[in-house]
């Protein structure tokens, strides 16, 4: 048994002989397609591997039967009833010729040898470890030397290595080693997942290396280290640096276009707030003094007083104008949930929506930096994660704007998860006025969970406003959320109005 004969070679020889016979046979119109012969070889080999050990007679039987099964529909004969007979005959002749050429004993021995080795492989590896299996596979391939078996084991070995490296990535998540494995992590994110489900947003990416509730300064440091990698993998809009250095002209031009456009957009506001029930911060009322802000006037009471005076034909004085007095320090904890799903990558007037949204949020942060409010940011695509937790805007607005620049879009939409995260953030806050704003341009999965989360938020005393962008948004759901949350529902037809909408929401809650 010194000579090694690959059984695949035997099968190929038989089948090529069969093809020759079929071509010569006058009863055959078409001798079968190449594809069917190709599959016949593969199929026979697989069949033998499934079977485990087989002797030569069985081997012959399998080759003939599986071969005919594969060729049956491809071969055409003058009389369809004779087809099976003709094929069987061709196989028999092919085997006879092969045996006369090589000597039956040798082939038989080789075939049985092959099968005894491979026999174990398919007997079910569920009980044993995977490692064990691959070891056995390599031993088998060593015995056979070439052909099918070795192909298989090589493949398996490769898989194993990949699997190990992946698990290594997952296990080593401490210190700087984390950042070292960044490359492979990011690769995994970008190229292993099918876009929608596995696409990580920036918040998730950062939180792989730092606690989600860490201080924003810490997060900014992590982001600084990640920056080159993000750039390498094309997750950054390339013009961040450039716009900082120059090209002010373009920026200015863009602004002109944008402001011209924003006039055209439509903003629709639906108010679900009941003035009496909306958490107000009125501490007391007093008479008007010169210098009071006009929107602090309590219109209802003032009107009552005035009408009373008019009815009694008396002059009215400053005392009749009632002014609301607010508590001195008022802090609202705001959580902004921004949709970073794939649809935000679309262009709107030549700019990606996400960029415009980022501009709007930056504007909003600037606006808030004059108040003493705290702001947290949640990014959501298929999963939601905390980009930064509650921080006073006045103090940290620079870091916020810095982090905002690196937000990118991609993946699905899951609003429920975002609301859940917001609730987690807000349970840590001690403030008695909490507010959640959701900005989304699409439809979310699992809308029933959204409603449940909104109810929970509302029970915790949080108000919810929603901002819907564009035509695709699920207005009905968002309106229900604002209704439950007792906030605003703002519908803007173009994302350029986002800044306006955000500030409108903020002014309303004041």
């Amino acid at each position, binding site marked *: 048994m010194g000579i090694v004969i690959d059984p695949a070679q035997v099968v190929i020889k038989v089948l090529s002989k069969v093809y020759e016979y079929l071509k010569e046979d006058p009863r055959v119109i078409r001798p079968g397609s190449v594809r069917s012969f190709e599959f016949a070889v593969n199929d026979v080999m697989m069949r033998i591997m499934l079977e485990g050990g087989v002797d030569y007679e069985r081997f012959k039987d399998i080759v003939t039967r599986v071969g005919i099964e594969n060729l049956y*529909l491809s071969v055409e004969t003058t009389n369809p009833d004779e087809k099976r007979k003709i094929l069987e005959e061709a196989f028999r002749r092919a085997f006879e010729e092969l045996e006369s050429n090589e000597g039956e004993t040798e082939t038989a021995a080789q075939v049985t040898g092959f099968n005894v080795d491979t026999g174990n492989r398919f007997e*079910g*590896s569920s009980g044993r470890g995977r490692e064990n299996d691959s070891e056995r596979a390599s031993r088998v391939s060593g015995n056979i030397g070439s052909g099918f078996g070795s192909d298989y084991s090589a493949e398996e070995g490769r898989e194993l290595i990949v699997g190990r490296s992946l698990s290594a990535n997952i296990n080593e998540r401490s210190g700087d080693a984390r950042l070292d494995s960044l490359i492979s992590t990011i690769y995994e994110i970008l190229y292993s997942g099918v876009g929608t489900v596995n696409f990580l947003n920036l918040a998730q990416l950062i939180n792989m290396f730092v606690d989600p509730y860490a201080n924003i300064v810490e997060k900014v440091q992590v982001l600084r280290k990640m920056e080159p990698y993000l750039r390498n993998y094309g997750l950054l809009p390339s013009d961040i640096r450039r716009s900082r250095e120059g090209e002010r002209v373009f920026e200015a031009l863009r602004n002109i276009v944008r402001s011209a456009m924003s006039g055209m957009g439509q903003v629709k506001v639906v108010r679900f707030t009941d003035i009496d029930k909306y958490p107000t911060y009125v501490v007391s009322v007093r008479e008007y003094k010169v210098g009071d802000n006009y929107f602090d006037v309590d219109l209802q009471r003032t009107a009552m007083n005035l009408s009373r005076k008019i009815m009694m034909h008396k002059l009215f004085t400053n005392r009749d104008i009632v002014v609301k007095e607010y508590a001195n320090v008022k802090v609202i904890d705001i959580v902004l949930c921004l949709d970073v799903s794939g649809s935000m990558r679309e262009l709107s007037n030549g700019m990606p929506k996400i960029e415009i949204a980022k501009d709007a949020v930056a504007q909003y942060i600037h606006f808030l930096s004059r108040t003493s409010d705290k702001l947290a940011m949640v990014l959501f695509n298929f999963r939601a994660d905390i980009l930064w937790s509650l921080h006073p805007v006045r103090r940290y607005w620079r870091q916020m704007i810095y982090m905002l620049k690196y937000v990118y879009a991609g993946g*699905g939409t899951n609003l429920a998860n975002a609301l859940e995260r917001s609730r987690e953030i807000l349970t840590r806050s001690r403030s008695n006025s909490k507010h959640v704003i959701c900005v989304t341009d699409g439809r979310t999965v699992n809308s029933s969970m959204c409603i449940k989360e909104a109810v929970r938020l509302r029970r915790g005393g949080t108000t919810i406003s929603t901002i819907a962008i564009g035509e695709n948004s699920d207005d009905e759901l968002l309106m229900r959320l604002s209704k439950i949350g007792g906030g605003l529902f703002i519908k803007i037809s173009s994302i350029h109005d986002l800044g306006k909408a955000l500030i409108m929401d903020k002014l309303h809650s004041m």
Partner: protein
Amino acid sequence: MATGKDLMALLPHLSDLIKREPVNVSKIVADAIRTKGVKKILSELEKELKGLNDIAMDVLSSLAVGRHVLIMGPVGIGKTTLAETLAEILHISEPPYIEVACHSHMTATELTGDIDIAVALQAGLDHPLAYIPGPLVMAHGGILILDEINRLNPYSQAALLQVLQEHYVFIRGFRIRSDFLMIATSNPAEYSGVYELSEALADRMKVVEIPYPDKDLLKTILSWKSNMYLEHLGLKAPDTLAEVTATFMTLVAQDSNIEVGPSIRSAIFAITTAMSRAWLEGREVSLNDLKREIISNMVNVIRGNFANEAEKKDYLARKFDEAVMMYRRYSRR
């Protein structure tokens, strides 16, 4: 479990369908076979079907190398059950298989699904109801069972062929990737109401024929299956019934007058209905019961050279008496 709203979330969006990646289904099948083990698969199959191990191996081997399979055999022999059970055991996707019962009036859009313009206008193209994918799209990454593929008309065969050769389904210009392995079942060509498979389609499939079982196997299948169906009544079919029925079936199947022989399914139900009839009347089952039930169960199954129904019934009765006689002679010996 899932409420109405959640079910909507399960429906795929067109945008996600377009982003689909190719899947190597044959590798998944090979892995499934490797982790389960051939012996375990066959023993699980044994719970459903008996005597088809060899056929099942043929199907498994071709699935593992990515060849589509056509299971051919007479009515009621377990083609569909075999396909379903194998797909269920392999369980390479969720759901384990997508099944289509083919009929001659099937359209290509029924297989691929089409965009509902009314919904698309109202809710946008990406609304899950705007495009409800057909079986060819849903089967991605799994196994597609086409029952009675020979009833598929040439128009829908063309749609099927396109998916098999290009691995893409085209919906109004949207291109959706779809990789799957197909198990088709078919009756032999002599049955009525069938279309010839187009050459290109036939070339992509391997034929596995389920032969008519021999008498001993038939007998074990009959008694096993009928006892399974009678279990909840607390009855057990006597061996005699299975033996006689098996003899009868082989007698009829070998007759040259018969084109389509009695199916196993009808035989099983002949035995069980005879048993339940006797159970209703509260007495022991007799061979006369069986005779009546065999005639009523098989009269519209078998086809052959008969002038009318009465002649067919007469023929069945005659053959049954013959079978009983053969059985008596055999058992006396």
